[in-house]
């Protein structure tokens, strides 16, 4: 039980932090467009940087042999 004496204040602090973070996110406009970002993932394949990253990752996998 004594653990609760510590845990309750910590819980309150964590909530306060979460609310502060949420307010910051809302104020910086991250929730202003709730439609666009949902589609942006579809266009990753058109992004040369993304493609390069995927290829690089694939190369690495080929070169390092799996641990037996």
């Amino acid at each position, binding site marked *: 039980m004594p653990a609760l004496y510590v845990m*309750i204040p910590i819980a309150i602090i964590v909530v306060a932090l*979460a609310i502060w973070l949420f307010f910051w996110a809302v104020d910086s406009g991250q929730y*202003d*467009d709730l*439609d*666009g970002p949902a589609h*942006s993932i579809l*266009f990753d394949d058109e992004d040369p940087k993304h493609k390069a990253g995927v290829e690089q990752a694939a190369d690495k996998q080929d070169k390092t042999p799996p641990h037996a």
Partner: protein
Amino acid sequence: MNSPTACFHCGLPVPAGSRFQARVLDEPRAFCCPGCQAVAEAIVAGGLDGYYRHRTENASNPEALPRQLSDELQLYDRADVQANYVQHQGELAETCLLIEGISCAACGWLIERHLRTLPAIAEAQLNLSNQRLQVRWADSQLPLSQLLGELRKIGYVAHPYQADQAAELLQRENRRALRQLGVAGLLWMQVMMAAMATWPEFNLDLSADMDRILRWTSLFLTTPIVFYCCTDFFKGALRDLRTRHLTMDISVSLAIGGAYLAGIWSTVTGVGELYYDAVGMFALFLLAGRYLERRARERTAAATSQLVNLLPASCLRLDARGNSQRVLVSELSVGDQVQVPPGHSLPADGRILAGQSSIDESLLTGEYLPLPRAVGDSVTAGTLNVEGPLTIEVQALGAATRLSAIVRLLERAQADKPRLAELADKVAQWFLLIVLGVAALVGLVWWQIDPQRAFWIVLALLVATCPCALSLATPTALTTATGSLHKLGLLLTRGHVLEGLNQIDTLILDKTGTLTEGRLTLSRILPLRDLDSDACLALAAALESGSEHPIARAFGRVQPAAELISHPGLGLQGVVDGRHLRIGQAAFVAELSGQSAPGIPGDQGQWLLLGDQQGPLAWLVLDDRLRSDAPELLELARQRDWRVLLLSGDSSPMVHSLATQLGIDDARGGLTPDEKLAVLRQLHDEGRRVLMLGDGVNDVPVLAAADISIAMGSATDLAKTSADAVLLSNRLSSLVQAFAMARRTRRIIIENLSWACLYNGLILPFAALGWVTPGWAALGMSLSSLVVVINALRLSR
């Protein structure tokens, strides 16, 4: 019959024999016009043809978007013009642009990617929900006018956007609503953990000390929920009490306030039940319902409301020596001389000093044919100069124009708008009366039996019967239905439309642009000599292809004739295959062959004569075509036994012939906006519930005053903003589907309300007997709310 190929870019039919082609995605594609072809080529050249792979909707036709001239764009480079909406930070400038022509998510990707490939652009971010583009760029390398030109190249029109007060307020409120929702959610979870530990169901070995700490903790965490998240409910309740209305807000405030106050009491004294978690749950559920409803309503409404530009942004002013200079309309003053080229709208009311032309006043008056105007005639701001260049003397500007008079009429009309009673409000009223009555009775009875428990039992009763599900019943159903209607192409901008559609008994229709397409199309060809209609049409199209005239659009685009000369007010002249041809007014065409002009054989529509040096070849009749799904809408009106009126500003016989064709008994032509409004007032006095369907500026006052108004998607911006809904698809058949959807929505709302009332009725006796603990109340409420939400989701299918 094989259907014509659709334009690869915009989806419109490709005219036969069109040569507009380009390679996109490794295949040759056909386009309907040079505009689409140019846009597609620009997109492919930029390596952005992935757009065509990912788009879900066809793009907008670039020729249908407002035209922006390069010298008009250059006005935007002037520092005094930019001062309002461009901010400078060192090398970089920052501005917000409102984009027209966005049809799906791929457009957003295309715009952002295209801009980011330009070296001068530091950052470009498009908000798809409100179609605003935030861009930071080095304007020393790329002037604003070129930036707008770049967007034009890929098929979008950008307007510099300056947030007005209403838009800023909207954004602030949206963010506040989201913050309230988030805080309620985060805190509720903590409160639930602390408060539930004290319930006897979970309380195994809680020491008295710990119990006290948990009570105080949950009080501490609940306080922001009540005072920050729920302020709107309390404010609403106060407002409704003052106006002596019993509404949902009062009921909700009573439950939240009661549970909170009782919680304080039991925290301080250490006896009694804790209802803190119920407070958090109410707050979260109710705020979520309201937030969803708000988002559904404001989605694209915000985007359309910004574009109330009936007047051109700039015009050509003539100085004393007759040189023209492009200036902003706001820089004009009365007495200035202004030159208006054909195809442009008039910036001010005035008198014609030189030139001869015809003026398209369809938006203002509903007349569907352009009317001839010559020197000395008065012209009105906002109308379109169709044929020849005009020089006008400015007589009235801004608020003094006839256009503004209609806008003022609109403001008066808005005050007349009757409010349709909403089902949920009526139910809430009865619900509240019954609950308060029962609570008083139960309190009184328990006071006799056990005064100690009376207070707690009344509180349990109030909390258990809090109309959580009841107040979620309507918003969830409306939100889902609004989303489904949006997919059908009907955008609801105000909340009462869906419920109101069921109460309508009168339908007022406008003619031009609403029942008809609102633009001239070729309806008949009468050959007069050896050439057949197809050959005549080919010749006519060759002549018209070089013209900017709106009539020319009816012919589609082909290879233009040689030696084209335009004679304003008369017609066009050119050479096709060595044959000298003229098209236009009969006398002008007959002059070429030296014969006398034949008389016009009919009265309806615009008659053009085509002729060569040997004499007239054919009559071509242009007319405004009836929308193909108009009969469907009228069939529905007949089924539902509505009274249908056709009110048009057009004074031509077409109003009555159209009414006969569609079976409308009551058709009135030649009405001014004032007279239209008077008809509506009379209908209101008869106690009728009116649905108005219109598109022009002359319909705007009636749109604003009708019980429910719907503007066509092709309507003027002012009509769209004053209407309650916009028919984006321009298909009247979507409207028929909307009526069916409105009925289904009403059924779901009634089901939801009945379920919520049933649940509350069932739990009432148990609460009155004192058997309902906070745990059971929480379980019951979440389950009943869940049922309501799931039931509402059925509307999305």
